[in-house]
């Protein structure tokens, strides 16, 4: 077969399978890489070697050329907050230690049906609350580009796994930027689909009205391929949309798209390198035929405070089921302890500080006497932000923004200042509040060589336009993104 080290993308896997390679060979290559490299990274929380090889063998028995299996033999890593039947699914929380769900999330079911091979589960911030993957009961995940830096989060394990070539693609979940931000920090493409596009059935809920599952990959094509498999109406999720899943590549890409740039949002707090890369990216898009349009999103500045009311409010309710009664970990108790003590002790020891902080914030925001001032008001602002976008989408086809104000920061930098971390969601949270599709595509590197992401936001259910744009950008971007150190093709 081909050179094992050359298999990185879905295209590489397909090429290998079309040649003399088998799905078992491909799976073995990735399992071996995990074995070699993951101890230093901590991307995986569970490696499903046995079942992965069985699944790969099934693909080999069936043949990898079945058109109903577009991901035949493609290994994939799954974020630990997505249910995988019989495999640990803990959302990196102590309260779910060793929990193995009796069912597959709809996305996992669809991946399996498409022939994908589940490599294992990836680390994340507990219940997806965070943007560094430092808040995990399994410990931190390191950024493959610089082991002293965070991979971003909350889907940091998925991002690190793909960036380190431990999996060609991975699933993440995005509630306020949790796919796009780690994609940007790790030099990947990451897509948060339109709310309702991908079933949430089997995703451990953080904020139900914001959560979406989406893919991370090395290329736009890989991300699109996984997206097409997991997207589409699911009767088990009442918020999933009936819209048909589009073909991609569309073949009818707009050659002269209009791209809106909300310059007024880009005033302060952005790294010079990030801003410079953004300007270069815009130049690239313009020279490839796009028109740039200055736009205003007057309410988008409220995205972070709005997000930090809505998301914790929903989380405070979503996390109530982790009570030690039916599953997960129940704190050891004295014979005499009453029910309240059981709840208190279980939740006190089962959740980390960040989760408790958000439960308390959310509980407060929903409390009698505060509901109108916080939750209701936040929902009203949400509507205003959505209207801002609706207005600009009457004249532009996509909105461009940096994905993050900075590149990956050192581990532990924000340990004592969660607010500083929350502010980092400034460019990503709007897409969750509005439900609009958004992706991050690598646009360059900062002076330290760390990757920078360009974010594109599209119209509802128009992932195709931003995927087309990103693919065009991927082809024409001026500077190569490079590879994490130690992963040079020659190595």
């Amino acid at each position, binding site marked *: 077969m081909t050179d094992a080290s050359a298999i990185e993308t879905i295209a590489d896997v397909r090429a290998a399978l079309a040649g003399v390679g088998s799905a078992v060979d491909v799976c073995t290559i990735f399992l071996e890489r995990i074995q070699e490299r993951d101890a230093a990274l901590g991307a995986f929380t569970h490696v499903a070697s046995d079942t992965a090889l069985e699944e790969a063998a099934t693909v080999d028995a069936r043949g990898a050329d079945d058109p109903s299996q577009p991901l035949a033999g493609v290994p994939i890593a799954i974020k630990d907050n997505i249910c995988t039947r019989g495999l640990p699914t803990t959302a990196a929380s102590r309260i779910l230690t060793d929990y193995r769900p009796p069912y597959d999330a709809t996305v996992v079911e669809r991946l399996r049906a498409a022939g994908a091979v589940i490599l294992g589960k990836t680390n994340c911030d507990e219940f997806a609350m965070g943007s560094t993957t430092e808040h995990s009961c399994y410990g931190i995940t390191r950024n493959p580009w610089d082991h002293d830096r965070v991979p971003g989060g909350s889907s940091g394990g998925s991002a690190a796994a793909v960036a380190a070539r431990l999996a060609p693609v991975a699933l993440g979940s995005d509630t306020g930027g949790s796919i796009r931000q780690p994609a940007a920090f790790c030099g990947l493409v990451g897509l948060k689909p339109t709310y309702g596009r991908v079933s949430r059935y089997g995703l451990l809920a953080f904020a*139900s009205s914001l959560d979406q599952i989406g893919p991370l990959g090395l290329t736009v094509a890989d991300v699109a391929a996984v997206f097409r498999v997991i997207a589409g109406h699911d009767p088990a999720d*009442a*918020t999933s949309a009936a819209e048909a899943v589009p073909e991609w590549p569309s073949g009818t890409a707009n050659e002269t798209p209009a791209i809106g740039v909300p310059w007024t949002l880009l005033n302060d707090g952005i790294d010079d390198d990030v801003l410079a890369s953004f300007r270069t990216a815009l130049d690239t898009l313009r020279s490839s035929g796009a028109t740039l349009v200055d736009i205003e999103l007057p309410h988008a500045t409220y995205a972070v405070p709005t997000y930090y009311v809505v998301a914790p409010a929903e989380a405070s309710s979503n*996390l109530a089921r982790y009570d030690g009664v039916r599953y997960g970990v129940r704190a050891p108790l004295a014979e005499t302890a009453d029910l309240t003590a059981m709840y208190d002790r279980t939740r006190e020891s089962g959740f980390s500080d960040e989760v408790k902080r958000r439960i308390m914030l959310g509980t407060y925001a929903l409390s009698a006497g505060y*509901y109108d001032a916080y939750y209701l008001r936040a929902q009203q602002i949400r509507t205003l932000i959505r209207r801002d976008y609706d207005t600009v989408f009457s004249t532009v086809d996509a909105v461009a923004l940096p994905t993050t104000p900075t590149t990956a920061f050192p581990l532990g930098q924000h340990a004592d200042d969660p607010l500083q971390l929350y502010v980092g969601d400034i460019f990503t949270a709007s897409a969750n509040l509005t439900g609009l599709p958004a992706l991050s595509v690598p646009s360059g590197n900062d002076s330290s060589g760390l990757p920078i992401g360009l974010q594109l936001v599209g119209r509802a259910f128009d992932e195709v336009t931003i995927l087309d744009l990103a693919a065009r950008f991927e082809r024409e971007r001026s500077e190569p993104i490079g590879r994490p150190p130690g992963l040079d093709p020659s190595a």
Partner: protein
Amino acid sequence: MMPDSEASRFEPVIGLEIHAHLLTESKIFCSCRTSFGAAPNSHVCPVCLGLPGALPVLNRRVVELAIRAGLALGCTVQRCSIFARKNYFYPDLPKGYQISQYEQPLASDGMLSYETEEGQRTVRITRVHLEEDAGKSLHAGETQSRHTTLDYNRSGVPLIEIVTEPDLRAPATAGDFFARLRAVLMAIGVNDGNMEEGSLRCDANVSLRPRGETALGVKVEVKNLNSFRFLQRALEHEIIRQADCLEMGEEVVQETRLWNEARGRTESMRSKEEAHDYRYFPEPDLPPIEVSDEWISEVRASLPELPETRKQRYLRELGLSATEAGQLAEQADLAQFFEDTARTAGNAKTAAHWVMGEVTRHLKTDGVGIDQVGVTADALGRLVGLVDSGVISSSTGKTVFEKMYGSGLEAEEIVERENLVQIGDRNELEALVTRVISEQPDAAARVRGGHEGTLGFLVGRVMKASRGRANPKLAGELLRQQLRAPGVT
């Protein structure tokens, strides 16, 4: 002191909250079965167990039944209503919140209006909303275990909560209303009325105020009123307790109390300060419930006649008494049996008499429902026709009924075979009358002396002598004639 007597200085003000299981095959948000009495935790799935990642999907049939209840209770059904989460911790509540409705319930502003001995009564319905039931905690003592055990079979069983305005003024009235409401829910096929199994449950809000006052007093919520008896007894007790409080110059404390049937009293469950803050917010996992005008019309058209409407029709069109109409109209299947009997018989009044008499008596002694009664409405109708037209006497009719019952024989066959045709021939009956008078000289003398009451006794003797075949009216007439008693012209 009777709490609801005129003598009391205080007027009770009562409103009810009724929880009714909807008669669906499957649960409100998953496809698990709703049947009662299955092995613990055998009708459960990730959704109704609240497993991580599971999501609710609304069962359309649930909405349909709730619309049915809303319409039957004269409510406005909202074109768009929303689910909300009611957050509280309890082990039998698997998600840590109950999916319910809060703002924008499915139906609101209705009423239930019905005849009582004191005239027409109207109780306003504030709202009818949808929610899911919780599982069941079985505490030590209720099971073999020394631990509390949990059965989630009931988790996710669909409920409607019906909230009334505080329009009730006495325990008996509240009990009567609950019974009427139950009859309506059963008649429209929404609920099975089974309070023992918990498919119909009731809580009450009760406050007292000085008579003549319009402002409401401090209210107490009394829970666990799961039979008519509990409801009435709990309210009686609670009214006395509050009246005693007020009489002694104390204030009633706003709280939730639990009826303890064994001790015959209400007991404090939690005070206002301990009351849960349920932190209601719109359920993000479920889109709004959209109900089209067409759907409402469809459901309205499929609604059966309600007991009260039927009763009014019986009074107005069939000339039944209030008691007859009330009793026959109560249950749809009995009402149907009666109407079929009346149609064949050609006389509603006599048919009513028979259904309420012989038929009901049989149902009671045999312990069966009308669907298992040993005679068809048609056959009974023909029997009633024979009696009504005087072909057989009514006492012969009863004999014939017994022979028909369970045998499948027709009244005509029995009458013919056993030669039971009523003796309506004057000459034939005259001889019997003469014989009875001679056999009963004392009774005859009393009738001659003007003692009208004894005439019935002699008619009875004539009936007996004729083996029930005598026409009693004619027999009375002939007796009077022969005894020259008054009343005959």
